[in-house]
């Protein structure tokens, strides 16, 4: 397949997991304020990534340089239910803001057959970097003078990507900053491909998979190494 025009390849980013959202509360100055993520804007509608379309007013103020996925703050006219203004949203939600997933139905313009499923649709938030600690238990016959490395798909599984810290003779760990919601494939090595981990019967192993969340800790056991038996 081929894609053309301005392309940005972003590594270590994927769809983030839902984050806690504020409870719906009162509006500010009489208008409803909604925080959501922008899907697109047409001449008539604004679409959130929830899939909901809302009507733009005739004099809606729209900030410049908004892009797909951008967190936005949308103010609604309480009478017409049309969008009054759209601006980029940064930082924590303002008091009184509600999430786009909890936008009252009367504000949404959509065919009845397409009404979204329930209210458990949660808007994605900005990508967040969290720390994840990996702990590896190595086999008894691991050479005591060797270092243990973690090898991930971020480096195309370079076998000496990152050296881990020794906890004791058979436990090693490392803490990495990763983007929440991303998926990391990884394995352990002793620094080169001839010493990658293998399964108990000597076969190659499928890389371990980690879905990155806040406070994640992994405890992995290496069954054996490629160069030991």
């Amino acid at each position: 397949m081929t894609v053309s025009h301005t392309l940005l390849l972003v590594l270590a980013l994927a769809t983030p997991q839902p984050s806690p959202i504020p409870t719906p509360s009162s509006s500010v100055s009489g208008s409803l304020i909604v925080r959501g993520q922008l899907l697109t804007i047409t001449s008539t509608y604004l679409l959130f990534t929830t899939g909901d379309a809302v009507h733009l007013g005739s004099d809606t103020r729209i900030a410049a340089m908004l892009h797909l996925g951008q967190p936005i703050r949308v103010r609604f006219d309480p009478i017409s239910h049309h969008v009054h203004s759209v601006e980029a949203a940064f930082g924590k939600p303002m008091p009184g803001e509600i999430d786009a997933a909890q936008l009252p139905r009367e504000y949404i313009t959509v065919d009845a057959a397409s009404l979204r499923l329930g209210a458990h649709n949660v808007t994605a938030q900005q990508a967040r970097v969290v720390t994840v600690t990996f702990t590896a238990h190595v086999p008894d016959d691991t050479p005591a003078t060797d270092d243990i490395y973690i090898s991930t798909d971020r480096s195309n599984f370079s076998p000496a990507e990152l050296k881990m810290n020794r906890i004791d003779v058979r436990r090693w760990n490392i803490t990495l900053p990763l983007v929440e919601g991303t998926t990391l494939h990884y394995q352990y090595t002793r620094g080169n491909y001839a010493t990658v981990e293998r399964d108990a019967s000597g076969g190659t192993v499928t890389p371990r998979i980690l879905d990155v969340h806040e406070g994640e800790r992994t405890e992995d056991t290496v069954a054996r190494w490629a160069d030991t038996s």
Partner: protein
Amino acid sequence: MLLAATGHVRAYLGTRKIQGDTLRYDFTHNTALVAGNVQVITANGVFAGTAYVLDLTLNTATLLKLAPIPATFSLRDDDIADAVEEPSAPNTFKVTDLGAELPYIVSTRADIIPNASVRLTPARFPVNAKLTIASPSYMYVFAPNPAFGVTPPTLPAASFDQPYGLIGTTHSLLAAHLRYSTTNGITTSLDEHLVDGTQRYFVASFEPQDRHVDIDGFEQLRAHLTQNFTGSLANDEKTARYVLQHTSKLITTTLTLSQFTTNIVSTSTPNASPTPANINGASYASDDLQINTVTRSLGHIASYKLRTDFGYDNISGQLPYEVDFRTTLGGSLYTPSIHGPLKTNLSGEYDFSSTHYDYPHQYATSTMLFTLARRINRTLSFYGNASFTQLYNRYGTQGFTNAQIINFLGLFPNPTQPVITPDGTPYPGYAAYNGITTQRTYLLTTTIAPSPNFNLLLSLTETCDFPQFHGFGRTPLTTSFDLRIRPMRTIAVEFGRSYIFGWDLQHLTPQYTLGIAP
């Protein structure tokens, strides 16, 4: 890992063509989202909408239309005639905000092979907001298989190795490598990976400068049976090695066949064993049948592992023993990690191995290792170990004539021609000592890691050997540090330096290492 495209995007996905204002393609999940003025041209017709989400694996899609009235439709095989108007599943249009992210690569055209690779033409690599590095084309491999993309075992180690993907599919990858090593300088090489799941792989590499060809093939024949073949072909050396290994619940049986041929005339070394390194213009074969027990526990007290090896070495033209059979017995005993005083963790292990040759030679080693670890807090931890190794390396001459013994001297160190050390003193070498030698090593390591972005490792190693000759042998004292910092979230820099000192002509000799990782 995402590909983000903006501004009149055209995507050719299989037989369909999709146009829109913006696009996101998720390599991991093989899904695409197109938003803004979407037009989809397929074999079944043309339709338009405001947003379109396509799962390329399942060939299902969701179309969001605003006209004549806003509605969402589910499609299968892009068939708009059979589209069903229904609510979209939760998070169908969910995307990640990339506003603050510095992209890894910027381009105007991407050719994607699903689950394998993407080629970007041309490619620009932003270093920061202003500076970019340009390349006419670049292929990024995202196949979730470790056999892809790694610096393969077939290429020798290098100080710098930058792979550049040329052709990549779901099962193969051809890459060029730009490399630097202190011995060969700047070189280029090619390598090809063929991968079939986790069952088998084949890697070949070629270095044009010295016409060096290496191959490495692995196959899992059955659940507990694997085979591995490695080979190397260079101007003056040829090596081949085949390993067949069976693992059961109790033992691992390994058959190893290896062959080495060289035209290189090497200089004399203090090594005693007839290894390839000290064979002059000869061929060398070595075959082994090794049986190891798997590590078995003795309750909670300890675990152990036993091993035996029966093999032979065949050195062409070497008299009087062209073929030398040998038998090895050995084993290891490991204690678990136990809690010691002052919140320490203690452990120990003992390893013993003895090899008897038909040729009058016995070689035995025994090693005791004691370790101690203490974690003070999240930031500071200590690790220390002490190892004691005894080497018994004896050549018997009983029953041989003087002429035969003189012939043997080609195979074991000649006490009349010792190595001359840097300060001019003759050194017979450890192996030439007719008895037991001892190597003692003491290591203390301190790790200071106040955050994931800063990690400092300090270590001090002391060796105390017998016989230990100053100016030759193991360095009595080595101190080193290894600093890993992460100046940016996506880049880690490792800087290391070590000093060896305390022996004769060597004082404070620094050695540097520098590495960059994601």
